[in-house]
């Protein structure tokens, strides 16, 4: 297992893909925090809950990019065919999936940490420039950053699981992006008011970092729920990889 972990870490380091993802993510964090921090009217920024949501954009971007990073860790191998030598060297394929989940969670946590921390820092700086008081205390910041890292780590595992089940790179990436960027939003704003949106995995991730406590689950509950999602999806990915023939 240690051998597989070291191999997966090297695979992640030895292409420019992750650097590109990291740069895109941080660029979007900068963009959204400046846009909101500078552009929104004071009346939309001075309350604590509004500041939590604005700074929480970092959590969202961390989650999105961590999920993509996890998904690419397996779909990229399938797309380029390196999955064949990988499984020839480690024919007990479950070990490869486990190593990909572990390494993706580690890198995903890093991405979540970077996105959440930079969002909070840029957001606070933007508010400061406009002379708006930041209402958040140390506990809020801790939850934003640590929760953002935890949410991104769990979503990275979900990404590996989805990638292992779907296998094809484009549908995997489009599916994850469509879910997080579109479906969750539709659920949250659903006219039928089914009240299920806060149990969705993207909303659970936002709950972990303490955003919007009125609508979302409590952070601990969000963490447990997202962990259950991650366990279920990675189990599906593990089963799919160990049971199906290698393409």
């Amino acid at each position, binding site marked *: 297992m240690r051998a597989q972990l070291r*191999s997966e870490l090297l695979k992640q380091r030895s292409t420019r893909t992750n650097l590109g993802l990291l740069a895109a993510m941080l660029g979007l964090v900068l963009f959204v925090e400046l846009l909101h921090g500078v552009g929104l009217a004071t009346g939309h920024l001075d309350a604590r809950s509004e500041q939590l949501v604005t700074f929480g954009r970092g959590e969202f971007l961390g989650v999105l990019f961590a999920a993509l990073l996890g998904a690419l860790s397996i779909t990229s191998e399938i797309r380029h*065919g390196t999955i064949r030598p990988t499984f020839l*060297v480690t024919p007990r394929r479950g070990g490869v999936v486990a190593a990909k989940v572990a390494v993706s969670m580690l890198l995903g946590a890093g991405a979540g940490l970077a996105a959440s921390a930079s969002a909070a820092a840029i957001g606070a700086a933007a508010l400061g420039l406009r002379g708006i008081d930041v209402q958040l205390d140390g506990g809020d910041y801790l939850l934003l950053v640590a929760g953002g890292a935890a949410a991104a780590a769990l979503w990275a595992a979900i990404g590996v699981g989805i990638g292992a089940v779907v296998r094809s790179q484009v549908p995997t990436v489009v599916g994850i992006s469509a879910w997080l960027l579109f479906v969750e939003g539709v659920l949250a704003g659903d006219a039928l008011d089914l009240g299920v949106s806060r149990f969705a995995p993207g909303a659970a991730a936002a709950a972990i970092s303490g955003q919007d406590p009125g609508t979302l689950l409590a952070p601990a509950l969000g963490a447990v729920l997202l962990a259950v999602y991650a366990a279920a999806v990675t189990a599906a990915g593990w089963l799919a990889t160990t049971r199906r*023939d290698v393409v």
Partner: protein
Amino acid sequence: MSTDGTAARRGRDLYRRPLRKPPEGSPGYPAVSVHSLTKRYGGLTAVDDLSFSLSAGTITGFLGPNGAGKTTTLRLILGLAEPTSGEALVFGRRYEELDQPARRVGAVLESNDFHPGRSGRDHLRALALAAALPSARVGQVLELVELDAPASRRVHTYSLGMRQRLGLAAALLGDPQLLVLDEPANGLDPAGVHWLRTFLRRFAASGGTVLVSSHVLAEVAQTVDQVVIIDRGHLIASARLDELAGRGHSLEATYLQLTTRGAS
């Protein structure tokens, strides 16, 4: 209670290693043995009740027209696909049961199984790490396939011949006893084919076993000791090369006759 500790240990050893399997590496142990191997995909039978075995130290050409089931058979042997029935064993075990498969078997199934943005050296390093092989092996196999100079370049800058050699380097990382190559000469220029032939002969001369598939007999005729010919998943012939040629026809004519029989 028995006080004979030796007998107890022997009992445990027997339990660990079933009797029907002779000790690994013993003489006469087939490098590859395929028994009634069958693989169906839905209604299509890709491999149909196929049986053959390869003794160690030989080069075997695995021949058949396109779509005969060669690649599927190799994938079954290498544990990448699960047989519908029958079994394929490598050194007496299923591939996934080998302790350190990279040290026993090296395989190249496609000529381009690389991430284009990763260097040749990093591709090999990742595999060496996963197989827990000493990192020095990476430099050694790069030298062996004459890729040490461009090893730090990203694979997308490599020519087809360089990619073929990088694939071979990956297969050789664990210094295996068996090499399995699927259509390795595809797309190689004459110099590349010559290099490959020389390489395989040297590998076999040092005691290695080679299973090399091709749909063109002429590609492998000068290299192999024996051939296994399949068509539509069935075994057509399994013979030493000189036996095949001894029937009074040219090798190519015999091969064509065997693989087009019954075709309409």
